[in-house]
C-alpha cells in the first residue's frame, strides 16, 4: 500500500498495474520461480526400476488426483483424469525413471537399438510378462498397440499420432523383438521420448480386436502393470491391488492403491489432503499447498507442467490482428510477472515465451527476462508497442474486439479481466468479454467466432518439434489464430530432422525469434504443478518431472 500512496498522484485513484498486482496479492505466499535443471536427455538401458532395499512392503497408498475420466481409453485421452488412475495398471515400451522423471529407461522393452541412420528402432521385449488376464505379452501386442496409435481406425482419435508420423512399417521380428522402420529419421531424443510417453500404454491385441479398436467404454481392459483393478466408483474412488505376477519382481511395494477423485486446484481436493484423508495429493490449489508446506511431516513439491497458457488473435476475422506489428505490440504490453501474480491463489504459473522456458534449447530464463515483453519493468516494452501500433496505423487503438473466455476455469476469467485492462491502458484496445463453457469455447474457437480467445494447450513432449507442430503448425489443430509464416515453416522441418543437438538449438532459437516478431499466439505463462505428500510416503519426488503424464506408476513407492 506504500507503493500505491507514493505512486498515485490523484487521491483515491489506483493505477491499473498496482490494482492488478494488489488483486493478485490477496492471500499469502509467493510464486515459486522455477529454476529447475534442464531436462536430462539421457537414456539408460541398464536402469530398470528396482525396489528400494530399505523399503517397507505392504500397506495402502491413498492418492488424491482428478480421476473422473470421460472414458477409459488412455490412448484416446489427453487428460490426467485417465492417466492418473489408469497408469498404474499398464506398462509402456520405455519409461521415464521415477527417480528424476527424465532419464529414459527400459520397461517392457528390456533393451533397444537405433540404426546409425536413425531409420530403424529395434526393441527387445521382456519374456515371461503376462497380462492381468493371464495372457502372454508378445511383440504382436506391441504391434497392435502402435499400429493403433500411428494409424488410428475411423472414429478413434489419438492425440499422440503425430509423434509417430514418420513411423512406416512396424515389423514383428519374433515374439520378443519388434522393429519400427521410419520413413525418415528424427532426433533420437524425440523418438525415445515418444516411446516413453506415459500415454502409450501397451494393450493386448485381442482386447483391441474384441472391442473394434475402441476402448472408450471398456473400464477394465487387461494391462501388464504393477497394479490390478479391484473396484471403481465413478467420481469417487478407484481401488487397485498389487499384481502378484508383475514381471518386475519385488515391485510394486504397496499392496493396495486407493485413488480418490479430487478435482484439480479444488478446495475439496486440498481439504482431503490437509485432513489426512489422502497420503499424496497431486494438483493442489496454491492455498492448500502453502498450508501443507507449513505442516509438520509433510513435503510440498513443485514441478513443471506441459501446458502453455495463452490467448489467440484471430487473423482471419480481424484485419488489424493480421498485422504482425499489432500482434507483437499486444505481446509486448503483457505484464507477465503481474499476470502470474493475478492467479497465484488459483494456480501456480511461471513466465515463459513461445517454447517451454525450462527446455534446454529455449532461450535461457535470465536472457529471456532481459527481453522486451518479459521484463519486470514493462515501460520500455510499452514504448516499443506504441511505436509498432503507430507504424501499423493503429495509434488510436482498436475498438470492440470480442474476447472469448473459457468460463469454467478461474484462471482464464481472472486473466481475461487483467489482459482486457492492460490492452486498454497501454494500447487503447477495447474488448468485450464473452464467457462460455469449455465445450462451447472449442466450437467457437474452431469456427473462428472471436477476435481474442483465451485458453491453454498441452503437449505430449517438451521437445520443440512437438509444440511447433501442435501449437503453431500450418493448419494445425490448435492454430486458432489461423497463423502462417513461411520462414517458420521452412525452419521447422529442419528442426525436426536435425540430429545434432547444437545445430538444432541454433535453429530453435531462430524459430523463437520469428515467433517473437510474428506471434501466432500471445503466451501468458506456463503452468506448474503443486504436489504434497506425508513423509510416510517414500520413493516419489517429482521436483524434476515434466508434466503429470509420464511418471505415475507408483510401483517403486512405499509407505512407512
Amino acid at each position, binding site marked *: 500500500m506504500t507503493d500505491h500512496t507514493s505512486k498515485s498522484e490523484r487521491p483515491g485513484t489506483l493505477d491499473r498495474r498496482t490494482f492488478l498486482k494488489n488483486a493478485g496479492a490477496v492471500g499469502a505466499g509467493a510464486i515459486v520461480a522455477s529454476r529447475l535443471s534442464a531436462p536430462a536427455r539421457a537414456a539408460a538401458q541398464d536402469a530398470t526400476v528396482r525396489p528400494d532395499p530399505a523399503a517397507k512392503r505392504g500397506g495402502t497408498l491413498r492418492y488424491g488426483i482428478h480421476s473422473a475420466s470421460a472414458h477409459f481409453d488412455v490412448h484416446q485421452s*489427453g487428460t490426467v483424469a485417465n492417466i492418473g488412475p489408469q497408469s498404474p495398471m499398464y506398462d509402456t515400451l520405455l519409461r521415464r525413471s521415477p527417480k528424476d522423471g527424465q532419464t529414459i529407461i527400459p520397461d517392457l522393452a528390456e533393451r533397444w537399438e537405433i540404426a546409425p541412420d536413425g531409420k530403424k528402432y529395434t526393441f527387445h521385449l521382456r519374456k515371461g510378462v503376462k497380462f492381468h488376464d493371464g495372457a502372454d505379452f508378445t511383440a504382436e501386442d506391441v504391434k497392435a498397440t502402435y499400429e493403433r496409435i500411428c494409424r488410428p481406425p475411423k472414429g478413434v482419435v489419438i492425440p499422440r499420432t503425430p509423434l509417430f508420423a514418420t513411423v512406416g512399417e512396424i515389423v514383428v521380428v519374433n515374439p520378443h523383438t519388434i522393429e519400427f522402420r521410419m520413413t525418415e529419421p528424427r532426433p533420437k531424443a524425440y523418438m525415445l521420448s515418444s516411446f516413453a510417453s506415459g500415454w502409450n500404454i501397451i494393450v493386448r491385441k485381442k482386447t483391441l480386436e474384441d472391442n473394434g479398436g475402441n476402448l472408450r467404454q471398456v473400464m477394465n481392459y487387461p494391462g501388464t502393470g504393477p497394479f490390478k483393478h479391484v473396484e471403481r466408483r465413478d467420481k469417487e474412488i478407484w481401488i487397485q491391488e498389487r499384481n502378484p505376477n508383475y514381471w518386475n519382481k519385488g515391485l510394486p511395494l504397496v499392496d493396495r492403491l486407493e485413488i480418490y477423485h479430487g478435482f484439480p486446484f479444488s478446495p475439496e481436493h486440498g*481439504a482431503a489432503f*490437509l*485432513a489426512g484423508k489422502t497420503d499424496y495429493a497431486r494438483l493442489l490449489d496454491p492455498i492448500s499447498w502453502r498450508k501443507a508446506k507449513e505442516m509438520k511431516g509433510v513435503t510440498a513439491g513443485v514441478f513443471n507442467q506441459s501446458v502453455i497458457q495463452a490467448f489467440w488473435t484471430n487473423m482471419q476475422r480481424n484485419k488489424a490482428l493480421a498485422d504482425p506489428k499489432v500482434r507483437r505490440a499486444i505481446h509486448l504490453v503483457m505484464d507477465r510477472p503481474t499476470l502470474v501474480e493475478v492467479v497465484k491463489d488459483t494456480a501456480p504459473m511461471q513466465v515463459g515465451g513461445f517454447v517451454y522456458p525450462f527446455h534446454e534449447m529455449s532461450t535461457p530464463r535470465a536472457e529471456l527476462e532481459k527481453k522486451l515483453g518479459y521484463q519486470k519493468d514493462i515501460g520500455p516494452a510499452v514504448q516499443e508497442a506504441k511505436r509498432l501500433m503507430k507504424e501499423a496505423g493503429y495509434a488510436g487503438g482498436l475498438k470492440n474486439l470480442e474476447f472469448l473466455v473459457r468460463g469454467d476455469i478461474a484462471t482464464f476469467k481472472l486473466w481475461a479481466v487483467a489482459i482486457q485492462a492492460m490492452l486498454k491502458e497501454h494500447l487503447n484496445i477495447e474488448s468485450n468479454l464473452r464467457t462460455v463453457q469449455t465445450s462451447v469455447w472449442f466450437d467457437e474457437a474452431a469456427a473462428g467466432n472471436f477476435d481474442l480467445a483465451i485458453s491453454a494447450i498441452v503437449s505430449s513432449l517438451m521437445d520443440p518439434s512437438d509444440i511447433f507442430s501442435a501449437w503453431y503448425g500450418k493448419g494445425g489443430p490448435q492454430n486458432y489464430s489461423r497463423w502462417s509464416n513461411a520462414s517458420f515453416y521452412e525452419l521447422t522441418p529442419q528442426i525436426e530432422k536435425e540430429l545434432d543437438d547444437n545445430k538444432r538449438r541454433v535453429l530453435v532459437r531462430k524459430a523463437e525469434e520469428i515467433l517473437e516478431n510474428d506471434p501466432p499466439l500471445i503466451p501468458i505463462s506456463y503452468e506448474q504443478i503443486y504436489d504434497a505428500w506425508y513423509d510416510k510416503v517414500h520413493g516419489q519426488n517429482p521436483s524434476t518431472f515434466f508434466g503429470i503424464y509420464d511418471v505415475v506408476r507408483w510401483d517403486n513407492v512405499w509407505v512407512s
Partner: protein
Amino acid sequence: MQKYLIRRVLFAVVTLFGVSISIFVIMRVLPGDPLVAILGVEGHARMTPADRERIMADLGLSAPLPVQYVRWLRDIGSGQLGKSFFRGDTVAEQIMHRGPISAEIAILSLIVSWLVGLPVGILSAFRPNSIPDAVARALSVLFIAIPGFWLGMLIVLASLFWFGYKTPMVIVQLWQNPWENLQIVIGPGIVLGLAQGAYIARMSRSCLLEVIGEDFVRTARAKGLKEGLVVMRHALPNALLPVITISGVLLGFVLGGSVAVEQAFGVPGLGRAMVSAVIERDIIVVQNLVLLYAVIFVLVNVLVDLSYAWLDPRIRYS
C-alpha cells in the same frame, strides 16, 4: 376422490411429458460439443469430419430428433434410463448408487425445517413483536437470504481449519455404516433445512396469527384450557395446511438447492452428478436426472394435495 386422483395422475403425466420434451429439446439446441469432453481438447482438435460422424453415430446423436426421443422413452420404459455417453454406465445405476444419499439429504432437511421452523413460528406468533419474535424474524430472513452453497463452503472450511476434519470422500450408505453416512448427509441436510425452516417459521407465524384471532380459539381459552393445549389441539392443526403446502413447494427448492450444496460439501449425490453431467454435456444423464427431479416434484405435490382431505375434514374431493 377416485375421480380426482385419476385426474391428478393424468395431469401429472401430461406435465412430465412436457418436461421430457422441454429438456430433450433444450439439451440439443444449447451450444457446446459433447465430443470435447469425450476426446479432450487435443483429441477434439485433431478429429476429422469422418471421426465426428462415426462417434456421433455411436452415441446415437446422428439419428433424427424424433427417433432419439422415442429411443429415450424406450430406455425409460426398460428401467435403465439410457447410458452415460462417456463411461457406459446406465443412469439407473447412477441413481441407485447416488440417489439414497440425495434422498437422505432431502428428508433430513425436511425434518430440520419442521423442527426449527415450527417452534420458532409458534413462539413468534404467540409473542408477537416481542424480542424473541424480532430475533426469530431476523434469523429467518437471514437464512432465506444466505445462499446454501456459501454457508456450506464456510462449514467445510471451518471444519477443516479448526478441527482438521473432512467428511468421508466416498459414498457410504446408511445400511453400510450409519455413522459415516450421517457425516456425509448432516451438513447439506442442515444447510438446506435451515433455509426451508426460515420459510416455515414465517409461514407458520402468519397462519397462527390469523388462526389465534378466530372465535374457536377464544372459546377454547374461555373454557379454561391451558395455553399449550390451545396451541397444540386447536390453533396449530388449523394453521398447518399452508405450512404443508409450502413444504411441498420447498421440496422443489431442496432438489434445486442440493445441486449447489452437494457441490459445496463435496457430497457425491445426484445434485453433483447433475453438475458434472451438465459440464460434460452428458445429455442422456442430464435429461434423465431432470426428469427424475420433475417426477419427484410432481409426486410430492399430488401427495400434498391429497393430504389436505386427511388433515381437514371440511375438504372433500369430488
